[in-house]
């Protein structure tokens, strides 16, 4: 087993970053309606997945999308507890703030957290360590598929959005994975109206994406409206970074300057949260949700383009990873 069930204290410690929304007034009726529809549809999907599958699990990375996903799941099943556990695929290359956020949030909700460790997969010889300072992003696939197999999960609910990437734009809300965990983009199930069909044979599983129709801006507007807490690294802070391949990587035990590279201290924030070795920071002075919304609305660079080195290998990086069983 590469997974550990984490015993969290039942007390309710302070959530790492309490974000008071700067402005709780909605942008106007039009936007409120749009967010209401997105929320309602996502809740519908979460309830369908829980009902149609035997052993679902909710994937949680500590990032903004999974924070929104978890918030929606709590809303969907309130006043009852979640009918599924929460699973974190831990690359071991974490921002400390994010792990503290994860533990505080899940324990305050009183939900069940399972952590599947990429380090354990490496120690067990399931995957080869790519070496000091290299990204473990791709290795997560093995750890995820092992966790799905060990726990006999038949549905993994994730926070991916179609606006993130051109391969994701092609994927169904309920996306079938064969016994090898593979996605076959040429043979997806038709998905008409709101008829989500979640049945699979033993060994196969589904990925479910309740946030499919949300954009990055929708996510942030919803975070503002619902006052959802996030790890502090999403907000501008001073940090030592190294510029590498056009990206600003945070100085850490895994990322140290190579020959010719310089450590600089600047105001940055993270637009996505992933493996610390391949997730870039962006220069930013945005310290509130309001300022972040303004920043994103005027940005000329896409979310993944700004922050993910792993998507730069080839023009179909995401598709290739997804075919192997990636998120």
């Amino acid at each position: 087993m590469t997974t550990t069930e984490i015993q969290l204290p039942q007390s309710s410690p302070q959530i790492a970053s309490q974000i008071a929304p700067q402005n709780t007034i909605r942008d106007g009726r039009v936007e409120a309606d749009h967010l209401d529809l997105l929320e309602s549809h996502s809740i519908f999907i979460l309830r369908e997945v829980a009902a149609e599958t035997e052993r679902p699990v909710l994937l949680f990375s500590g990032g903004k999308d999974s924070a929104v996903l978890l918030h929606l799941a709590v809303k969907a099943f309130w006043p009852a507890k979640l009918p599924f556990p929460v699973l974190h695929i831990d690359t071991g290359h974490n921002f400390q703030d994010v792990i503290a956020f994860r533990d505080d949030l899940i324990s305050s909700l009183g939900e069940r957290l399972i952590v599947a460790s990429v380090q354990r997969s490496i120690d067990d010889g399931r995957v080869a360590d790519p070496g000091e300072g290299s990204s473990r992003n791709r290795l997560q696939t093995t750890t995820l598929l092992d966790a799905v197999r060990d726990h006999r999960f038949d549905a993994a609910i994730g926070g991916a959005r179609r606006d993130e990437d051109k391969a994701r734009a092609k994927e169904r809300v309920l996306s079938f994975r064969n016994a090898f965990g593979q996605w076959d983009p040429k043979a997806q199930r038709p998905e008409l109206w709101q008829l989500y069909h979640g049945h699979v044979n033993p060994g196969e599983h589904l990925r479910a994406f309740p946030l499919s129709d949300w954009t990055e801006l929708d996510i942030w507007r919803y975070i503002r409206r619902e006052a959802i807490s996030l790890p502090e690294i999403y907000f501008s802070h001073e940090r030592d970074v190294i510029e590498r391949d056009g990206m600003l990587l945070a100085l850490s035990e895994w990322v140290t300057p190579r020959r010719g590279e310089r450590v600089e201290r600047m105001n940055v924030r993270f637009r996505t949260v992933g493996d610390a070795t391949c997730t870039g920071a962006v220069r930013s002075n945005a310290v509130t949700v309001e300022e972040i919304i303004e920043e994103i609305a005027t940005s000329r660079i896409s979310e993944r383009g700004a922050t993910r080195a792993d998507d730069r290998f080839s023009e179909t990086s995401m598709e290739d990873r997804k075919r192997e069983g990636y998120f």
Partner: protein
Amino acid sequence: MPAAAPTTHPGPPPAGLAHSDLLRFAAVGSVDDGKSTLIGRLLFDTRQLFDDQVDALAAAAERRGLGEIDLSFVTDGLRAERSQGITIDVAYRYAATPRRKFVIADCPGHLQYTRNMATGASTADLALVVVDASRGLSEQTRRHICIAALLGVTQIVVAANKMDLVGWEYEPFERLSEELSDLAQRLGIQSSWVVPVSALHGDNVVGSSKNAPWYVGPTILELLESLPAGEWARVHGSHRGSAARLPVQWVLRDPRGGRSYAGMVNGGPFRKGDRVVVLPAGLETAIQSIDTFDGPIDVAPVGKSVSLELTDHIDVSRGDLISSLDDPADVTNLIDATLCWFRDVPLRPGERLRIKHTTRLTPAVVETVSHRFDVNTLELRPVDHLSNNEIGTVSVRTADPLAVDSYRHDRITGSFILIDDATNSTVAAGMIGTPGIDRSQLNPN
């Protein structure tokens, strides 16, 4: 010179609609007529693409030795799509102009991927039909328009594409307009528009073109920004007065005691205190409270996910329909339906499948296969089977009784899918009763 834009819709498009902030549209039409290029052009010219995405397109073009950016790559993101230059599955894109938000489903044109086209069109307010003006209306394009109409899409915008290849002559455009006007009318499509464009060069897509001085109508974008949005939601039941519906998804048990029935409101609204009937059992009760995480509400509007507490302790489970008592859904074991068939092996009477209707899954047997819909002549022809990608009329007997409405009245309680037991594949999309098409316009045979 004629303006020739509206074919069945008189006057200019309605402007300044109050609740028109989001338009869902599907780009449909035959392979190689230029759907993906048109969507790429639309997104490029309205500056929806990020700088790094444009850079990636340029790099992809350079790698293939193309002179300039291939706009179809904006939505054709899969390796196989780019190498073959085709669209295999629907790509969803999200765009916003100062006037409105868009959800775009770029659908594949190939016959073998018709199921994916139906997926994209099933939730659309409008179909953007792309036709190669140099080749005219193909059978596959007619099939797409028919499926869109059957699915209840009431408005189409036709891009008469590749006008540059016919020298921007008026005659080919006029021929196409007349053919489309006739088709739209016979299919009961309320609003159809034809615009002469070149997706490759951008004429009449976002900005108007000088190449067709005889055309004085709106561009594609102008139509997309002004035609009614929210039609899908409007048609599927929000204006049906008392005919409230809520298919039960899940029974929520309050740890402090009590239970409520979770689902999304469809038709309605429901009000606290309303008398309702739980179908198919037919048990009458009333709504004690309407609950949400954010607190109880008095009125549950269409499209909202809520949970309902009922005044009586009755047996309610997933798959049941909580329905307005004044105008309840019909309870039946035998449904007549229009079907799009999506499996290589033909459908014949006697086939056993599973049906998913709202939130209920139950065994079903197809008792009769009576007619096939001919997309060329729009005639219903008697048949004994339906082949892959064909549309026809069938009757289905279900193990559990279902609480249904006709698709024409309610797209949620009026639709279903059929599932193959062995493979779990979705093999058909079904619409209950007479679909959105006006049968009097057809030629029953």
